[in-house]
């Protein structure tokens, strides 16, 4: 991908995949070249997240609204994918910014706002999942054949044609299958995979967000990818067997 990814600091950074294929990620800002016949005045630089929060602390309420606007798409994406429920994501999104508002004075301006925001959001989302888990029915958790004990080599699994069926699958069906697979993952694996893949946090920042050691970030991500691949294979085996 040769996209521009918002880095949470008011800037975009370019990312490129190995195949050069364009990929849009949540929070991605597409820049388009604008034809210009006249010299353009220099654009007013956007304030960084940290500058907006500082302004808010000094009484600029519009700065906070700008932060909410800036993150509504990316954070909502994370939450709805993590929780698997739009209404819950909506609620946690609001709770997250309420917490940001209430804790704004405690924010260390020498640190980045974006990881802090995601720390709050992930904590709120986890709290919700746990509170739902204590109820008799759990709408936020999906389970796909929890008793399955199929095993396999990682390499074989990933290169298996069973993981990517030759038969064309309807897009919607494929989307639902991937969503079910993601939702069937344990919460801590799903969370870290989403943060890394979609939100492109470096390992160090994930370590800060989840408050876990860097080594745990790595091992958890390795496990998450393996788990996702396992579940995907299981689903497709079941599908082809039925």
């Amino acid at each position, binding site marked *: 991908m040769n996209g521009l990814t918002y880095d949470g600091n008011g800037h975009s950074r370019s990312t490129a995949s190995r195949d050069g294929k364009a990929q849009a990620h949540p929070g991605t800002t597409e820049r388009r070249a604008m034809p210009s016949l006249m010299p353009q005045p220099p654009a007013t630089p956007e304030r960084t997240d940290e500058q907006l929060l500082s302004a808010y602390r000094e009484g600029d309420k519009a700065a906070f*609204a700008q932060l*909410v606007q800036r993150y509504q798409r990316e954070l909502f994406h994370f939450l709805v994918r993590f929780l698997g429920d739009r209404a819950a994501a909506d609620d946690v999104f609001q709770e997250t910014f309420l917490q940001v508002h209430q804790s704004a004075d405690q924010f260390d301006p020498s640190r980045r706002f974006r990881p802090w925001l995601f720390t709050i959001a992930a904590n709120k989302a986890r709290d919700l999942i746990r509170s739902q888990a204590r109820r008799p029915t759990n709408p936020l958790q999906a389970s796909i054949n929890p008793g399955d004990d199929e095993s396999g080599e*990682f390499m074989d699994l*990933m290169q298996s044609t069973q993981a990517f069926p030759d038969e064309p699958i309807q897009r919607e069906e494929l989307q639902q299958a991937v969503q079910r697979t993601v939702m069937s993952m344990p919460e801590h694996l799903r969370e870290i995979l989403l943060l890394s893949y979609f939100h*492109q946090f470096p390992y160090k920042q994930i370590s800060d967000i989840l408050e876990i050691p860097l080594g745990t970030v790595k091992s958890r991500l390795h496990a998450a990818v393996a788990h996702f691949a396992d579940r995907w294979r299981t689903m497709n085996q079941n599908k082809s067997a039925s």
Partner: protein
Amino acid sequence: MKTIPDDMDRRAIDLLLDRKASGQLNEVFAVSVREQFEKRLDAVEQVLSLLDQLPEFDPPADLASRTMARIADADHEPRHTIRPQFADTRPHA
């Protein structure tokens, strides 16, 4: 039994997911094992690319405004003072 990523799988995952690890392919492996590693990389990339199939979930159009309204409401709510379980209404001795 679970699938356990071996060292090459782990390196492939790190290379694809950790932005800071990007561009280290040449440093990590000698030419003799590089081809094998490229296959692992392709395999992991193939698995991860499935995630791109997750549906897009656009936020409700009024999410930001509702969030701001909720914060305003929270500010206007009277602060709940914590009262002692037994109000101190008893006459002092």
